[in-house]
């Protein structure tokens, strides 16, 4: 008996997902190609600096580094440290502005 005969069948999912890009992927490509993703990033970065969000995150990191000692801190530690607080403390008006821009883009990209 040949091994190929006993080989388990290819799972169905792989065939379907492998070739067609998801909606999200299409949009992501459009965002990058048009340069809009870069612009959105810069806008968000700017707003987060202006409102003190970045300083807050940096302060959290500094106190953690001070507590643990700078040689015992990994990048992963810091990312896990500031992600929940970071996501939760974006001011509403900043989030609104960005969502508005993104929605306009989605409309204009005729999706």
């Amino acid at each position: 008996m040949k091994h190929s005969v006993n080989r388990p069948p290819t799972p169905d999912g792989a065939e379907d997902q492998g070739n067609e890009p998801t909606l999200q992927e299409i949009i992501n490509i459009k965002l990058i190609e048009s340069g809009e993703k870069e612009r959105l990033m810069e806008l968000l970065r700017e707003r987060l600096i202006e409102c003190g969000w970045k300083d807050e995150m940096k302060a959290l990191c500094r106190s953690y580094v001070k507590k643990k000692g700078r040689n015992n801190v990994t990048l992963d530690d810091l990312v896990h440290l500031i992600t929940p607080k970071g996501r939760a403390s974006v001011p509403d008006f900043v989030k609104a502005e960005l969502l508005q821009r993104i929605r306009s883009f989605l409309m204009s990209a005729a999706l």
Partner: protein
Amino acid sequence: MSGPNEDNNTQLSSHIFGDLLDSIIVDVASECHRIAKLGLDRNLEEEEEEMRLSAQARARVADPSNSSETNTKYVVDIFGQTHPSVATEIFECMNCGRSIAAGRFAPHLEKCMGKVIPISSYHISICLYLSIMIDSYYDREFCAIP
């Protein structure tokens, strides 16, 4: 088609926003990680160094076998007093306002003033300051430096 499309758009927008935010979070964490690893955070550096040197000084003072060349520990001065080999008198640095032990004052001044003081003015700076204090400390500091 407004209903389902709008919901889709809203969901999509939130997801895209989340992605942007997560990227920025990683950037900020990277920046902080880099600063920490390269020791670029001056305040943290100074505090660490201070703590390390204080611990060192305390250990030296506490160690009974530690003696300078003139073995100042058991020498009695003209007033009939003995002094520890590393002066432990605490006073305030005139630059930063911190409380520093006399024996640790010169190294502290080096960092506090923001530059390295060459060895001869190291003695001079501490002597100038301490000449205001009791005179016997001058000899103590000068002789006690290992």
